[in-house]
């Protein structure tokens, strides 16, 4: 089983959902993005999602786009993501934290899908989350991910037909990423009710592990989603914390969010 799946199963063994935290590589600097990711892992985050800053991030809201734009303006290079992944996996080896890379597809294509995959494995990365790559177009990625044993996390959305959910779940390894709402990333005041339906649809299609992302920002959201999903993905809130208080603030937020999951378990037990 993959490291990502292991992390989720470990959380399941503790009767809780897994916590997945997103951070863009290179923001506010490469070193601080590494420090922040380690702070996530040390404070209860089970899976870390390292985003590659990209010029046209159509699925990202304003907070994440501002961060990635800043990283690019400071000269971030795609190859740096492997340095970030390696530093984080090395520093968190004792915790078994899985590190996924979230990337729009063109930077991967540009480097070459095989080359990118090879370097990701070398760095200790577990796989890719691909917001603008659907399984229909992923032949090259199937080949490379099979060759290198990488997880391929595809998204299902509230708008996905049952046929597409089934096809996507079958193509996915690691976990199925359930998009909680029709929109882009960004903190919301409430979790869309669609999230639960997307999780149910993915489960019905045979998904062994389903994590919910987009619009998840508070401990209450995390608790609520953690009651029915296998994992909860938080991005914008973490990036905001990093922007405002650096890696330390990221650690504090992660501790707060993960404690919410533990309380859920206690309440639900």
């Amino acid at each position, binding site marked *: 089983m993959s490291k990502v799946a292991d992390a989720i199963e470990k959380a399941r063994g503790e009767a809780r959902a897994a916590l997945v935290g997103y951070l863009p590589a290179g923001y506010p600097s490469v070193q601080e993005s590494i420090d922040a990711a380690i702070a996530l892992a040390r404070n209860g985050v089970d899976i870390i999602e390292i985003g590659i800053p*990209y*010029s*046209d*991030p*159509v*699925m990202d809201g304003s907070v994440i*786009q501002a961060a990635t*734009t800043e990283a*690019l303006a400071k000269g971030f*290079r*795609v*190859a740096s993501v492997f340095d970030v992944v390696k530093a984080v996996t090395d520093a968190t080896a004792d915790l078994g934290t899985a590190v996924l890379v979230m990337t729009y*597809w*063109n*930077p*991967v*294509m*540009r*480097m070459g899908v095989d080359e990118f995959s090879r370097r990701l494995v070398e760095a200790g990365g577990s796989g890719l989350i691909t*917001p*603008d*790559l*659907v399984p*229909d*177009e992923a032949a090259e990625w199937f080949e490379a991910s099979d060759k290198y044993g990488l997880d391929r996390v*595809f*998204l*299902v*959305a*509230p*708008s*996905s*037909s049952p046929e*597409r959910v089934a096809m*996507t779940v079958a193509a996915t390894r690691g976990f199925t990423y359930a*998009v909680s709402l*029709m*929109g*882009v990333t960004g903190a919301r005041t409430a979790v869309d009710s669609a999230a639960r339906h997307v999780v149910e649809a993915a489960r019905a299609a045979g998904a062994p592990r389903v994590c919910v992302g987009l619009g998840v920002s508070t401990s209450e959201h995390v608790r609520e989603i953690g009651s029915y999903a296998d994992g909860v993905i938080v991005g914008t809130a973490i990036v905001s914390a990093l922007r405002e208080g650096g890696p330390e603030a990221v650690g504090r937020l992660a501790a707060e969010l993960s404690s919410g999951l533990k309380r859920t378990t206690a309440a639900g037990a």
Partner: protein
Amino acid sequence: MRHAPGPYFGAYGGRWMPESLIAALDELEDTFEKAKVDPEFLAEIAELNRSYAGRPSLLTEAKRFSQHAGGVRVFLKREDLNHTGSHKINNVIGQALLARRMGKSRLIAETGAGQHGVATATAAALFGMECIVYMGAEDCRRQALNVARMQLLGATVVPVTNGSQTLKDAINDALRDWVANVETTHYVLGTAAGAHPFPAMVRFFHEVIGEEAREQILAQTGRLPDAVCACIGGGSNAIGIFHGFLDDPSVKIYGFEAGGEGVETARHAATITLGRPGVLHGARSYLMQDEDGQTVESHSISAGLDYPGVGPEHSYLHDIGRVTYEPITDTEAMDAFSLLCHTEGIIPAIESAHALAGAVKVGERLAAEGGDPHERIVIVNLSGRGDKDVQTAAEWFGLLDENGQVKGTTLSTRRHKGSSRLGEAQNEAAQDEWQEGIA
């Protein structure tokens, strides 16, 4: 080769899109596939084209302009005479009808030069729909007149301040809106790019340009042209006219990209000339990108060509060699702009001026092949009129004072701020004299 259905054109096209939008693309594809073979839909389009948009557009022989194009006969396909002033209305009417079929009440669009935004605002008004147009903040400044036109038509114009603040960023924001509002909203993509079915669908609505041009040139001259020229940003006007001639091997086809300040500089939008295959806005196609796969900002004096991507079918036509794509610099385009103003009394869109500049080169090449140049025929797709570009052109030709006010003198006596041969000639002689000088 005509009417290729997509989703792929050779190695290009496809659907590189967030899963959230796939259902909307499926619905659009299904609606379009049924509509394009539905006589009622086709009749409705034809009627609106005739009684509202003003089709068929004329095919005008540009006799005085021709003298500057090696003496070959140049014909202009007059999309500038369409309602709203460009070819854009063809596509927008079609997509608005599809939106109505899908029960959607809200149209969103992106726009660079503003022509597509104006056309979408027009269709929204015609069909009683809400309209939101995303436009780069830089383009809002360059095309203030069109911003006002959209607002007069009842649309809301949203200035986009992300990224380079131009067309590609407007597309990004329109896609974000679409993801969030897809149940009520149709995204009226303005060019033959993006995810399937947009490239094939937008081309379908523009094929009327090529069909008319082919019929008209046969009627007016009794033969097919030697060459067809069009400008290429995303490539919608071009793919429309090209499709009338793709299966005519005797017809050479040319697409002219924005060479900006020169393809040897970093400031251009020559996607096919200098780009390489990649994925942007839902399709695999040629793309201006750096070594990391980050989109490179484009530049053109024409906001409508200022886009780092290109429709996937153009990439395919380039690869197989059916269409020749070449860059035209800002200076060359503005020379041709002025030339058409002076020789034919037509102010073209600066986009179309790229095609006119290309036609001059093509005409000279055809003439150099020998024989009577007057026996040679070139069609140029005059994709739009230049009303929106008057401010830009006035700045270029130095017609404005330091306060941005028109100096009140004629074009032919003004000093050209560029270093073109036309500008120099204008400063040296009266109009008739410089016309001889550049012949």
